[in-house]
């Protein structure tokens, strides 16, 4: 199910000040291009005073808050069941910090779907426009650049530290909601574990939990220990008080190394389901000594290299330098964490040495790990706008978690169930028949050509004109290459169907697009 419990922590103000209001302050102080001279003169004086005050503050400020950046993102998300449209622009508030190379590090969720990103320095009223240079949605990290060189003047990049110890003290820096000034909160590292990253929803990476208050707006801000960054604040958990989470430097450094080749590939994935192997009978059945080493491969994702090199009931004894315990964990800096971490040391497409116990013998395997994309639709998606086709007012779009979130509680359970099964279970249970990109009829834009259709959307598409629909291109081909008088559309479940008059639809298409203000009938 969707990771509803965790929430990324940027502030979101739908009905807050608009873009011009936010920019007002800066323009009054710095824009010399308009207005009466007297007014300009006054503005200049105010601006000079403000800048001076800001500079004084900068000089007086103690490190490292001078390098902590306030971020405002004006974001606009697509509407997943009406994919040609966008939601209203939302102002998202977050934090970031300066790193080497004149860059700002922040969370991916702070800047996702950003139309414009504004960054502000510590106690400096001037807004600067920033751009996303690299973004890793799986690890919820992003690196921003600022074109205006002045932005980085007198700003020292913060250095990255090591993984903090549990119980050690940390301080979070950021611009959480509830005020305009920078905020500091002190706490200790409560635990270090693999956790689901809420921004993408279907990836687990190393996470530090702290009792330092991490609130909306803190996202992307540094967590500091001994003047070094030991993490990036990023999410909380509903129902847990005094618990915030930050991304440790282990993950940050992996991200920074990944983008060294000027491309972000993502965290690698072994593609296996590892289960504890603690029952003496199972260990004896696999001819393993009854000690605390080794976890069992219980499932393998359809990743060819993994399927080739690992087998069901293989026992992983060591991954890289880490011995694997019988509960499926490794010991990392004194913390017991899921052994999935051991695969995440590598970069995508590198090989990880794995010691395997197979049928009573030890086997050494060099396992290539990949940044798996096969389950992209099962997590939250960013950057790419949703694909769609509008044909005769019928809106076809790929099934995804983002689409499922648009379904209200009143959607018939049978429709939700079928889609949910197709998205989350089919590939495990029936991989040969699983569709690479299941397509849904999201909605029907009312028109005389479809007025007699009983189906009104929220339905999984099975076949069109006899062709099984495996991806959106199949819909396009089946409809556009048809020479029949009628288009036959079959849906799941229970094989309900509808018929369209092909010639009538061809005539109606442009009318429907015009009526509903859709500039293009497709995005493929």
């Amino acid at each position: 199910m969707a990771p509803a419990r965790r929430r990324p922590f940027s502030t979101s103000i739908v009905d807050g000040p608009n873009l011009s209001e936010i920019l007002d302050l800066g323009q009054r102080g710095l824009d010399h291009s308009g207005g009466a001279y007297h007014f300009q003169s006054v503005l200049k004086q105010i601006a000079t005073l403000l800048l001076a005050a800001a500079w004084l503050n900068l000089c007086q400020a103690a490190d490292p808050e001078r390098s902590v950046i306030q971020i405002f993102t004006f974001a606009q998300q697509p509407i997943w069941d009406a994919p040609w449209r966008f939601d209203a622009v939302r102002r998202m508030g977050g934090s970031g910090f300066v790193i080497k190379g004149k860059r700002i590090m922040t969370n991916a969720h702070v800047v996702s779907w950003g139309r414009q990103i504004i960054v502000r320095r510590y106690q400096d009223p001037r807004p600067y426009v920033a751009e996303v240079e690299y973004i890793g949605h799986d690890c919820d990290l992003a690196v921003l650049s600022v074109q205006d060189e002045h932005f980085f003047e007198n700003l020292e990049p913060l250095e990255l530290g090591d993984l903090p110890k549990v119980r050690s003290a940390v301080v979070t820096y950021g611009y959480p909601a509830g005020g305009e000034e920078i905020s500091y909160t002190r706490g200790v590292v409560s635990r270090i574990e693999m956790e689901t990253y809420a921004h993408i929803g279907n990836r687990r990476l190393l996470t530090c939990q702290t009792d330092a208050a991490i609130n909306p707006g803190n996202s992307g801000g540094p967590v500091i220990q001994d003047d070094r960054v030991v993490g990036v604040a990023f999410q909380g958990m509903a129902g847990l008080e005094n618990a915030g989470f930050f991304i440790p430097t282990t993950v940050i450094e992996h991200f920074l190394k990944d983008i060294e080749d000027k491309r972000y590939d993502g965290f690698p994935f072994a593609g296996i389901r590892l289960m504890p192997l603690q029952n003496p009978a199972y260990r004896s059945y696999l001819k393993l000594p009854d000690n605390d080493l080794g976890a069992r491969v219980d499932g393998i994702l359809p990743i060819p290299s993994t399927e080739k090199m690992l087998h069901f009931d293989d026992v992983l004894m060591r991954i890289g330098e880490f011995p694997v315990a019988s509960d499926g964990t490794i010991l990392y800096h004194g913390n017991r964490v899921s052994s999935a971490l051991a695969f995440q040391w590598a970069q995508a497409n590198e090989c990880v040495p794995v010691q395997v116990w197979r049928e009573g013998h030890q086997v050494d395997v060099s396992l290539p790990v990949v940044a798996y994309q096969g389950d992209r639709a099962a997590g939250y998606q960013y950057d790419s706008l949703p694909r769609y086709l509008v044909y005769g007012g019928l809106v076809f779009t790929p099934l995804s978690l983002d689409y499922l979130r648009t379904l209200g509680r009143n959607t018939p359970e049978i429709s939700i169930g079928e889609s949910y099964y197709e998205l989350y279970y089919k590939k495990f249970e029936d991989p040969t028949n699983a569709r690479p990109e299941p397509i849904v009829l999201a909605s029907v834009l009312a028109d005389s050509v479809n007025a007699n259709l009983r189906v009104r959307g929220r339905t999984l598409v099975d076949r069109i004109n006899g062709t099984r629909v495996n991806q959106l291109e199949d819909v396009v081909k089946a409809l556009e290459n048809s020479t029949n008088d009628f288009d036959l559309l079959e849906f799941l479940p229970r094989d309900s169907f509808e018929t369209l008059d092909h010639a009538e639809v061809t005539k109606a298409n442009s009318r429907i697009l015009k009526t509903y203000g859709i500039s293009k009938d497709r995005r493929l």
Partner: protein
Amino acid sequence: MKSLLLLVTILFISALCGQGQESKRAQPSPWEKSVVSLEVSRRQYDYYQPWTRKTSRVQKTGILLDGRQILTTADELFDRTLVRLQKNGRGRWYSGEVTWIDYYANLALVTTSEEGFWNGLKPATFGGSVSEEASLQILRWREGNLENRRAEFTQYTVREGQLAALNVPVIEADSDIQNAGWGEIVTANSHVVAILSSQEGRMCTSIPGPFIQSILDARQKDRYHGLGYFHFYWQGAQNPASLARLKLTGDPRGAIVSSVPPRPDGLDPVIRTQDIILNIDGHDLDIQGDYVDPEYGNMMLEALATRNKWAGDDVKMTIWRDGALTNIVYKLPKFDYSVSLVPAATFDHEPEYLILGGLVFQPLTDSYLQSWGSDWRRRAPFRLVYYRTEQPTKEEPALVLMSQVLPDPYNIGYQEQKCLVVDKINGRHISRLTDLREALDNPKNGYHVIEFAQSDSLRSIVLAAGDSEKEATTRILKRYGIDESYHFESKEKQEK
């Protein structure tokens, strides 16, 4: 003289007052002699701990028919331990006995061998269908008085039954009665016209008299073999393009068959997808799949599977197939809970289970899923609920799941596993607990290898077979206060 006059006046006024009081006293309703109360005690099972028992008690209403039979709904009569009857809304309770029950039709007949109960009672009769203008009354005994609530007729329609996913005719009516749906009697013009089966807000749903009467008559003539149904999916023909594609000539009409799953009785389905059903047993179908019922008015075609037709009966259909009219005869299959992959009900059967070294195995049934409470369709594990949409096959007629693990050193490492559907044990495919028991008799080299259905969760468990298994099971039963390591149906039923 004045005193005498005053006395006469007082007596006269008193007499007048007395007459007034007499005239205000409510006349006893003739229904008091026909409407009776039933008290049902029954076992309740906790399917999450299938070895435990609770009891519950519910009060219902029944109506006396000819032949000393009291008609009520079947609801809450399952797993009964005691049924008692009471007349006049007060006084002693008489031991009752269920003489006939049909959960699919949601009807039951109850009687008593105690003669005293029948004294002063009068059988009621069923009326025909209800007209729109008819004034409906809902009757039941409450706190010693016959409660009589007005109800406003809304419509005859077809709905899923209260105890089975079977489409049957119902009356919908609006009333301010509270906590109804327990067999209350619906009357109009001195006749019983329905019995109430459920209530949601003000909407009262009841089983119509003609439907009840037709079942009782067929039963008397030994023609009733249970309710039948149409084992296919269809949709209306409102879309002219669909009719044109299927080349139907003449006016738009009929219902189009969209899916025909294999019949549970293995017979030829006779009907095919994309057939247009035009007429059933002489009733023309309109483009919504409705026909005009002589008693109920416009009704969905599903009602024709129960309109004086029962399981095993033939239904004549005129269909449009491949551009031509064809007549077919459709034999109605019997609706049965057990023909589903996940049986919808297990009435009058104690929950089955088998405990192996702390691993609890149970059949996957709706009763089990309902352990998640009233919102179980959303709260129970998604995958288990989704099995309800799948059809049983010869290879997979039913499902067994490992519902939970009772922690013990024997099963260490597995304690948190639960709700996993079993695929194989020791290489043998498992559909029923009997398969499972047989599979356990053949361990593999001293181990029980349990494989679960391929999904996103755990695939296999291995346990030691032999003495350690038996010792563990004995120890676990004692520790968790469970009397038996398994409970199955009777041997005859297993073999069947």
